[in-house]
């Protein structure tokens, strides 16, 4: 994934001091502070990174002899630099402006303090540069737990989501979920054109926000686990009977818990999904599982007998 400099400027509200090459793109969320480079050391120079000039680098350049400063800056801009951002609203030295113009390199400015700017930059770039995918399913927030409900077309995913919304839970996306992996977490959102909408067979598309209120929809949610709805199979069932299966599914390289739920008429899916969400919270906070409790009780009885 790549990020256009013009998008970065707009989203982070940066001033443009020198406009550079419009085709230049950011490809890494890493940052370099070019203090060492200004002192003439170029081993391990991350030229593809965003270069942040803070008060330290600025004052180092400022105290330098003007001839040397010109030489060092010229050397710096010979590299294929993505962009330079100056923090604290500092005015860049003229040598920087002139040389950057000469090499068609972006020089931008932020009013933020350097550490604050770096934190914002990294968070923003990680999100923008994150790997994405699109999956079929419903993304809902049930008791604060992000659940991706999957299953074959027509199995009743949207109807289940609708019942969950009716019970006070929150819809993130119907049918198509866009997923980004940031820092090992999977962030799911709805495509812009269909956000807040759900299709119910027979009714067509309904506007969830209009019918159930603003609090029934959410823009983005981290996916905690996946529920797969499957047709009930009477002959052979391999569903989890103890609640201790470690089944997982891989999304964008992240391994995530998967629960398979068999469906058949009369099973109240919304109630089951609520229970699954509550159980997920229980299992992530509790040190003992229901199966272990039963095993312990059995052991207790056996010991009494001896």
């Amino acid at each position, binding site marked *: 994934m790549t990020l256009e400099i013009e998008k970065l400027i707009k989203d982070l509200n940066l001033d443009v001091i020198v406009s550079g090459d419009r085709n230049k793109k950011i490809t890494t969320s890493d940052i370099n502070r070019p203090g060492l480079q200004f002192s003439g050391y170029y081993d391990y120079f991350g030229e593809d990174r965003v270069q942040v000039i803070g008060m330290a680098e600025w004052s180092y350049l400022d105290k330098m002899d003007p001839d040397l400063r010109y030489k060092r800056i010229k050397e710096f801009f010979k590299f294929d630099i993505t962009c330079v951002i100056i923090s604290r609203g500092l005015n860049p030295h003229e040598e920087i402006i002139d040389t950057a113009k000469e090499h068609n390199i972006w020089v931008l400015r932020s009013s933020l303090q350097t550490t604050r700017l770096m934190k914002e930059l990294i968070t923003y770039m990680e999100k923008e540069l994150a790997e994405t995918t*699109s999956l*079929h399913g419903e993304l809902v927030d049930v008791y604060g737990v992000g659940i991706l409900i999957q299953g074959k*077309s*027509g199995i009743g995913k949207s109807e289940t989501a609708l019942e969950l919304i009716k019970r006070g839970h929150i819809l993130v996306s*119907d*049918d*198509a979920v*866009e997923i980004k992996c940031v820092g090992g977490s999977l962030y799911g959102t*709805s*495509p812009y*054109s*269909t956000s807040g*909408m*759900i*299709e119910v067979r027979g009714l*067509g*598309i309904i506007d969830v926000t209009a019918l159930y209120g603003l609090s029934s929809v959410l823009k983005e949610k981290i996916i905690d686990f996946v529920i797969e709805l499957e047709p009930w199979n009477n002959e052979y069932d391999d569903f989890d009977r103890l609640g201790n299966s470690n089944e997982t599914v891989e999304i964008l390289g992240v391994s995530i818990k998967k629960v398979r739920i068999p469906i058949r008429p009369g099973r109240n899916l919304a109630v089951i999904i609520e229970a699954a969400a509550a159980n997920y919270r229980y299992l992530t906070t509790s040190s003992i599982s229901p199966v272990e409790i039963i095993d312990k009780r059995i052991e207790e009885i056996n010991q009494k007998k001896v």
Partner: protein
Amino acid sequence: MVSKEVVVLNSTGIHARPAAIFVKTASGFKSDITVSKDGKSVSAKSIISVLSLCINKDSKITISANGEDENEAIKALVDLIDSKFGEE
């Protein structure tokens, strides 16, 4: 599995009305059918998914089908797009 790349010709692209026709046609087949645009792939049997792709006039899309009636499915959907959904 069969795939075919097509360019959408009708002036409104695959907006609501054409999307409904497209999804209805796709749902008539047993095969799993997907539509993809700009690397995003979604189910062709879901109206919300098809609309989420924002397919406009001149958009290049790929239709893929996998199943017993895959060839018939692709042919029907490609014909539908080529016919501009009956629009002028």
